[in-house]
C-alpha cells in the first residue's frame, strides 16, 4: 500500500542503519561469508542474475540515461560478468596465504601474510554506470568474504530500484543488502562504523564520506574523477586516434564517465608530415585496421593547420558514427538529469567560449540531449576548463610545443586518467615520467578499465585506493602478518641484564662475521 510504503521509506534513519549494521555483523561473526563455497555461490548467482536479466537491466539504463543497448550490454553487463568470471576463477588462489621470507633476525621462524575479510563494508556507487559501479566493487567485497551494504545512486532511480529487487532475489540477503535513498539515507549510513567504505563519485561528496569515516578510523577507497586530458602529437594515424577518442568520449555514456577524455591539448603548428601521411593513408586506409568504409578526411589535407585537420577528422568520424543529426541518434546517451543539463549548457553559453564552438552545440532541453560539441582554443580561465566536464563537450587547447602540454596538465589537479597519442619514443617516455594521473594510456583511451591485471584508481584529487581483478579482493581484505616462532634457539643477548658483551654480539648479528652470528644464534653468547 502506498501509505505503508512511504512509512517504510521514511523510516531508514540512523537507528535503522545501526540495526542493519548490527544484523550484518552477526552474520559476519557467524563465519558464513568466510567460506569459499559461500563466496563462489554468490558470484555464480551474480553471473546468473546478469544473464537472466539483461533485458531488464538494459531497459533500466535506457530509462535512467537513454543508454544505447550496446553500451549497457557491453560496458556494464559484459564487464561485470568478466569481473565475476575472473573472481570465480582466481579466488581460490587469492585466499591462499602468501609466504614471507624470514631472516636471521628472527631465526628460527616462519612467516606468512594472511588475507582475511574486513567485516561489514559499505559501497556507495554512482549514477553514470549504475550497475557496473555498484556490482564491480561488490564482486571484490564478496570474493574477500565480507558482508556488504550497497547504496546505489538515487540519480539513476530505475537502476537503483532494479538493483534492489535483483540482489534480494539472487544473493544472500543475510549478508548483502541494498539501501536505496538520497542524502538522508546516505548520511544515516555514514554515521555507522564500517570496516571499509568504498565510494565512487565526486570530490565534494568524497570529502563528506572521508570525514565521516575519520570518526571511526574507517579506511576508504575513493574513486573520483578529474579532467582527463588527451595530448595529440603530430605524425600519428589521426583517423585511428580520432576514432579512439570518440569511442572514449561520446561512446562512453556521452562523455559522462570518470575516465572520458575531458579535453584535448595539441599544437598550433603546421605539421607537414601529418598532411603527407594523411594523404598516403587515405589511399592505404582500405587495408588498415580491418576497416572497409571509405575515409572522409581528404579535405583536411589542404588545410595547413594541424589542429584544423584534427577538428575536421573529428567532425567526419562523428558524423559516421552518429549521423548528421546526433540529437536523434540512438547510439548516444542523454544527459542524466536537468541539473546536469543546465550545468553543461552554462559551460557552453559562457561568453568566453560560446564563440569557440566549431562543431555541434545543439541541445534539446526536453529530451535532455546535447549533441557532440567541439570547442577550439578556449581560454584557460573559462568555466569549461575549470571543472570536470562530464558531458559531450570537447574543448581543444593549443600550445606552441607539444612538451608544454605536460606542464599544463601538471598545473592542474591530478586526473584519473591521461592519454597521449604519439609515435615518438622520447615523448612517450617523458609523458610517463612527468604526468601524474591514476592511469595512463598511450595511443588509446579508456581501454585500461578492461584490463583486470591493472589497478584502477586515482591519485591526489582523483582518488585513493584502487580495484579491479585481484586489486578488488585486496581492497576488501586485511593482510594480516603472521609470524611463527619456535621455542628453540633464543638469543640470550635479547634479554637483560645488558652487558657490553651482548652489545658486541647484537652488532655481530646485525652485520657481523659468521662465527659471531653462529654463537649468537645458539645462545652461546655469555649472559
Amino acid at each position, binding site marked *: 500500500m502506498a501509505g505503508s510504503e512511504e512509512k517504510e521509506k521514511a523510516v531508514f534513519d540512523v537507528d535503522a542503519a545501526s540495526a542493519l549494521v548490527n544484523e550484518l555483523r552477526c552474520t559476519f561473526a557467524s563465519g558464513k561469508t568466510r567460506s569459499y563455497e559461500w563466496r563462489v555461490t554468490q558470484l555464480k548467482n551474480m553471473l546468473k542474475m546478469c544473464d537472466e536479466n539483461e533485458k531488464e537491466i538494459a531497459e533500466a539504463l535506457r530509462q535512467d540515461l537513454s543508454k544505447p543497448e550496446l553500451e549497457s550490454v557491453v560496458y556494464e553487463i559484459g564487464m561485470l560478468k568478466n569481473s565475476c568470471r575472473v573472481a570465480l576463477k582466481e579466488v581460490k588462489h587469492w585466499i591462499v596465504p602468501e609466504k614471507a621470507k624470514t631472516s636471521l633476525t628472527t631465526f628460527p621462524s616462519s*612467516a606468512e601474510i594472511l588475507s582475511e575479510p574486513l567485516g561489514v563494508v559499505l559501497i556507495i556507487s554512482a549514477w553514470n554506470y549504475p550497475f557496473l559501479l555498484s556490482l564491480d566493487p561488490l564482486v571484490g567485497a564478496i570474493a574477500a568474504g565480507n558482508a556488504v551494504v550497497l547504496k546505489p545512486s538515487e540519480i539513476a532511480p530505475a537502476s537503483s530500484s532494479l538493483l534492489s529487487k535483483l540482489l534480494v532475489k539472487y544473493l544472500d540477503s543475510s549478508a548483502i543488502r541494498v539501501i536505496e535513498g538520497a542524502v538522508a539515507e546516505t548520511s544515516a549510513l555514514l554515521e555507522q562504523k564500517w570496516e571499509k567504505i568504498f565510494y565512487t563519485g565526486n570530490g565534494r561528496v568524497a570529502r563528506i564520506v572521508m570525514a565521516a569515516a575519520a570518526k571511526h*578510523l574507517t579506511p576508504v577507497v575513493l574513486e573520483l574523477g578529474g579532467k582527463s586530458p588527451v595530448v595529440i602529437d603530430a605524425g600519428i594515424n589521426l583517423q585511428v586516434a580520432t576514432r579512439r577518442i570518440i569511442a572514449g568520449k561520446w561512446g562512453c555514456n556521452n562523455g559522462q564517465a570518470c575516465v572520458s577524455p575531458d579535453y584535448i591539448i595539441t599544437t598550433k603548428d603546421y605539421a607537414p608530415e601529418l598532411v603527407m601521411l594523411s594523404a598516403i593513408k587515405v589511399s592505404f586506409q582500405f587495408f588498415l585496421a580491418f576497416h572497409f568504409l571509405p575515409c572522409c578526411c581528404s579535405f583536411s589535407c589542404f588545410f595547413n593547420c594541424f589542429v584544423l585537420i584534427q577538428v575536421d577528422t573529428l567532425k567526419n568520424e562523428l558524423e559516421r558514427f552518429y549521423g548528421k543529426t546526433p540529437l536523434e541518434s540512438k*547510439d548516444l546517451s542523454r544527459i542524466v538529469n536537468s541539473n546536469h543539463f543546465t550545468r553543461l549548457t552554462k559551460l557552453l553559453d559562457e561568453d568566453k567560449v560560446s564563440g569557440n564552438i566549431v562543431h555541434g552545440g545543439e541541445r534539446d532541453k526536453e529530451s535532455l540531449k546535447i549533441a557532440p560539441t567541439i570547442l577550439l582554443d578556449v581560454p584557460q580561465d573559462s568555466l569549461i576548463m575549470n571543472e570536470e566536464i562530464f558531458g559531450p563537450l570537447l574543448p581543444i587547447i593549443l600550445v606552441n610545443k607539444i612538451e608544454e602540454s605536460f606542464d599544463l596538465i601538471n598545473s592542474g589537479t591530478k586526473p584519473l586518467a591521461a592519454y597521449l597519442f604519439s609515435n615518438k619514443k622520447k615523448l612517450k617516455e617523458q609523458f610517463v615520467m612527468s604526468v601524474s594521473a591514476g592511469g595512463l594510456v598511450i595511443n588509446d583511451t579508456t581501454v585500461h578499465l578492461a584490463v583486470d*591485471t591493472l589497478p584502477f584508481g586515482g591519485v591526489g584529487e582523483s582518488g585513493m585506493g584502487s580495484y579491479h581483478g585481484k586489486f578488488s579482493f585486496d581492497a576488501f581484505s*586485511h593482510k594480516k*602478518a603472521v609470524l611463527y616462532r619456535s621455542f628453540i634457539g633464543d638469543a640470550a643477548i635479547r634479554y637483560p641484564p645488558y652487558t657490553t658483551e651482548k652489545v658486541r654480539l647484537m652488532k655481530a648479528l*646485525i652485520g657481523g662475521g659468521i662465527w659471531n652470528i653462529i654463537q649468537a644464534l645458539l645462545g652461546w653468547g655469555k649472559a
Partner: protein
Amino acid sequence: MESELESMREYFKSGKTRSVSWRLSQLKGLLLFIKEKEAEIFEALKKDLGKHPVEAFRDEVGTLIKSINFALKGLKNWMSSEKVKLPKIAVLSSAKLVPQPLGLVLIISSWNFPLGLSLEPLIGAIAAGNTMVLKPSEMAPACSSLLANVMTTYLDTKAIKVIQGGPSIGEQLLQQKWDKIFFTGSALVGRIVMSAAVKHLTPVVLELGGKCPAVVDSFSSSWDKQVAVNRIAVSKFGNCAGQACIAIDYILVEKKFASNLVELMKASIKNMFGDNPRESNTIARIINKHHFLRLKNLLSDLAVQKSVVYGGSMDEENLFIEPTILLDPPLQSEIMTDEIFGPLLPIITLDMVEDSIEFINSKPKALAIYAFTKNEQFKRRIEAETSSGSLVFNDAVIQYAVDTLPFGGIGESGIGRYHGKFSFDTFTHHKAVTTRSFLTDFWFRFPPWNGQKLMLFETVYNFDYLGILLVILGLKRCKRNLDVI
C-alpha cells in the same frame, strides 16, 4: 611555513629526488648519521626515556641499520616498472605498473621510539623518491633536537626537513596540502589527523595502538614455559617499559596455570631486571609526569590495588615504575579498558584457554595478538577467528624486525602498513600505463551499433576466439532484438 613547503614542491618538480643516485645517497647519509652519531643517539634516548644503550640499539638503532640496508639492497628492484599480463587478444598492446613518488609527504612520529618511528617511515619516503617533512614528538626533546640539528647535516635539506614543535605546530602542518600523511600515535589524535586530511583528500597511514593480548596456553615442558615467560617479560618490561604500541598489554591464561605463570614471571623479572631495576637501568622510565600520573591512576582503584601480586612501587621524582603484575583486576576497571602503555601487566584467568578468543573479540582490534601455544588446532582457530594487525605465535614484539611482513593495524589500531618494501609502496603511486599500437583495432568498437558488433564484444570478452571467427564469418547470429526497447 607555506613558502618553505612551496620551495620543497618546486624542488620535487625539478625531479632531483627521483633519481636512483639521490635516493641511495640519502639512505647512505642516514646510515652514516646512525653509525657516526651512535653515542649521541644513545645519550638522547637515555635523556628522554632512560633507555639502556643495548635496548636502544636492539629496538631503534640496530633495526634502523637493518632497514636501511634492506632498502639499499632492494631499491633498484622496487623502482623498476612491473610488466602486467594482458590477454592474448590484446595484440600489439602492452601494460605496466610504474612506481612514482607521491610528492611532498608529512611524517608525524611518536615519543616512545623517537628515532625508530621517525626514521622507519623516512626510509620509505626517501626510497620512494619524495620530499618530506618530519615532525618528531616534542615529548622526546633530546631526540627531536638531534634529528632536527644533527641528522639534517647528513641529508639534502632542500628535500628533507625536520620541523620541531608541539600540538600547535602539528595543527599548522595538518592544515597544509600533503600528498600523504604518515602518523604514529594514539587513536584520538589519529582521528584528528584523518579529519584534517579530508580537506585535501590526502591519503593517510595511521599507526595506532590498542590492547595487545598475549594468550598463554599450558605447557608440559618446563623449557617451553621458561622461554615463553622470558619472551613475555622482555617484551613487556624490557621494551620502553611497556610504552610500545606492540607491547603485551595483558595476558590471558587458564585458571589452573595462572599461579605457576605468576611465579615464573616473578623469577624471570628478578633474573632479567635485577632486584633494583631502576639502578640497573634495564627498564626505561616513564616519558613524563602526565603519563606517570595516568599510570598511577590506573592502580588507584581499590579493587585493582588488591589484585597486584608483584611490584607496584612508583618513584614519582624519577618517573620510574617497577615491573608490576596484577592477577584478575576487575574487567570494568580502566586498566582493562584503556591501552596501558606502561609496565603494568594484568593477568586475566579463564576457565579454558579457548575462551580467550571470545575475550579478545569483545575488544577493539589490536595492533598485534600474541599466542603462546603448541596446540596446532588452537593456533588455526586463533588465526581464523581473531583479527589484528599482526599475529605472532610463541613470541612477542619481534615481528617489528621482519622486513618481509607488513606492519600496521586494523580498525582502531590503524590504517595502512609499512616496513621493508611496504614502506616504499606506502609512499608510492603505482601508475598503470597501457600502450596500444595504431595497427590493430576492432571495427566493432565504434558506432553505429548493431547486433553483430554486440556479438563480437561478447565473444571477445569471453576470449572465445572461435566464436569471434564464427561471428565474422556470419555463422553466428545475434539472438537479441536490439530494437525491442
